[in-house]
């Protein structure tokens, strides 16, 4: 039971971080379908930091270093989306998809190259970080507390405050609702959208490293992050683009994702003899059902997905 709670909180943290990322981007008016790819890049940055950092350093230093590198990788990678979609008015769906494919390919190439250089016979795309990963968790009795749970909670509170209580957040949302109106009162729509995309890159980058350190100590980058970026988008839609609702939605989705990790530990679930694949499918099925019921009356930002053109009416 403790294990289920632990994994639920971990996966919920991933979903909260990434969904908040999507939330910032969409509130600024850019649909960020590249979240999945940004997660992969953040994960790669974080994993390599864990691999190379001296594991005898104090835990807090390791946690902060991993956080910083993941944030940086995510933000840098998201500039590709911002550049194409904001400045060059490219199709946001196409560019987002390209980012996902590019990240999967690039991360595999980078991880493999590093392995090959270390040992020419090691052609796998796996990065291992057994030792340094221990710094990320604190054992509270049976429950393994992960520092990233706290990070996700802080991000949630910050997102709420920034979006609804600060001048920046309200301006950001104006750019996603009616960019022409925002522009007419002197808000630079392009800058605001860049800010939205960069914030989404940072949050998704952290989400990536949390995902690949959840319960495992190595990651095969050929697998990417298994559609988690898109699950986060489903969480965001279910949460109606509002931080608090996103937090609750993430807990629900996290629970179903956690079930597939720990179902064999429950006697009554194991006795049902359902194949593991069914549990693996669960989060995706649930999200489809949830989307079917919530998309019709969606409260999506009105101008999302439409490139802003100063000259248009």
């Amino acid at each position, binding site marked *: 039971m403790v294990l289920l709670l632990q994994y639920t909180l971990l996966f919920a943290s991933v979903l909260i971080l990434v969904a908040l990322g999507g939330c910032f981007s969409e509130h600024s008016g850019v649909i960020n379908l590249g979240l999945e790819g940004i997660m992969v890049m953040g994960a790669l940055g974080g994993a390599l930091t864990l691999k190379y950092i001296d594991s005898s350093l104090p835990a807090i230093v390791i946690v902060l270093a991993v956080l910083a590198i993941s944030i940086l990788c995510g933000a840098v990678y998201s500039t590709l989306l911002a550049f194409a979609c904001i400045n060059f008015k490219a199709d946001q769906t196409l560019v987002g998809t390209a980012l996902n494919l*590019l990240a999967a390919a690039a991360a595999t190439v980078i991880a493999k190259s590093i392995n090959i250089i270390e040992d020419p016979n090691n052609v796998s795309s796996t990065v291992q970080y057994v030792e340094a990963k221990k710094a990320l968790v604190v054992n509270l009795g049976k429950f393994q507390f992960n520092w990233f749970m706290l990070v996700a909670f802080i991000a949630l509170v910050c997102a709420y405050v920034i979006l609804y209580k600060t001048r920046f957040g309200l301006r950001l949302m104006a750019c996603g609702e009616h960019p022409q109106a925002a522009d007419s009162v002197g808000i630079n729509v392009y800058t605001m959208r860049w800010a939205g995309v960069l914030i989404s890159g940072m949050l998704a980058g952290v989400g990536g490293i949390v995902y690949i350190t959840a319960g495992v100590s190595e990651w095969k980058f050929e697998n990417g992050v298994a559609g988690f970026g*898109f699950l986060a*988008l489903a969480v965001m839609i279910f949460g109606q683009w509002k931080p608090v609702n996103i937090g609750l939605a993430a807990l629900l989705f996290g629970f179903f994702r956690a079930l597939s990790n720990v179902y064999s530990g429950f006697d009554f679930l194991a006795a049902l003899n359902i194949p593991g694949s069914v549990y693996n499918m669960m989060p995706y099925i649930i999200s489809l059902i949830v989307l079917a019921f919530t998309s019709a009356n969606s409260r999506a930002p009105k101008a999302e997905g439409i490139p802003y053109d100063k000259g248009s009416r």
Partner: protein
Amino acid sequence: MSAENKGAVAKEKESLLAKPAVQSILASLLCIIVGLFIGYIALLFINAKGANEAIVTIIKNYFTYPTKAAALKYCGNTLVKAAPLLMCALSIQFCYQAGLFNIGAAGQYVVGAGASLFCALKLGLPWFVCLLAALVAGGVYGVIVGVLKAYLNVNEVISGIMLNWIGLYTVNMALSSVKESSSPYTLSLASTNEAALLPSLGLEKLFSNNKYVTVAIPLAVIIAILLKVVLSMTVFGYEIKATGIAKDAAKYSGMKEKRNVILTLFIGGALAGIGAAFFFLSGYEQWSVTQSSVPGMGFNGIAATFLGGLDPIGTIFASYFIEHITSGGSYLDKNAYPSQISDFISAIIIYLCGFVLFFKFFLNSRIRNKKNNAEGGNK
């Protein structure tokens, strides 16, 4: 050359550049060149010594074989994989004409593979039934996305991705009953049910008896041409395009946009499903029931379709090119370079395709400016 002549030549050049087809080809070539260049830089970073040789290997693909017979045989292999890629690309393209981004093509491909292999191995049916099963399975899978989109306003990209994963796990479960006992792969068609293999009609003789070369390759090209005809010459094609360009206008002028969305996705799904049957019924590869990621065929289709300038005929060449460099990547020295460098190049190409619209706009506005200047000068 007199000044007058020069002016005429320049004008001709301009009008050539102004043609949409020429612009598309130019844009695609530019994407390819830049994509390959960035790939080359990546190779330089990994290992500068062999980078020249590596990029040449990728571009040469089967031409690396010294004898003509061997080269032809491996050319056949590339074509075997290019046919399903073309089908996936057509699937995405057809839907894109209606304004739908069918990223679910990957999942429709997966269920197509599952249905055709299940019919072939478990039920022992002949190839045309298996092909039909793949068509229906892919189509129905597409319809799910279509209904969700048309009636419940679910973003087709997100539902497509979810269905990709659901499809993968379902097919893995369904096919685990027909797998080899000692490996995760499904039974081979040749030994279990030969009638399920696609007929070759003697085509294999053209490729040094490469037994995987089947009717799938010419069929895929014919389907591409057929789609071109449907899109440019029929009422249905016109409605699809009208729905894509202005959904509300299409609805206002009496087109049933909901029906069109669902029908488009059925056709798109069916195309991807057929693509899977084209590949797996050739016996080239067996399905691994433990695979934990969705096959890349559907995603590479996105690269092929945009590189082909969103035109079925252009997509034929683009699919071949993408498969050519993907196969070329597998000839790299595995202990020096990862073969995924080809996927990396394809991904860069897709990203660059995002700029194509801007490129055309830029080109057109330059041509217009020049024209205006020239006319102003005459006065």
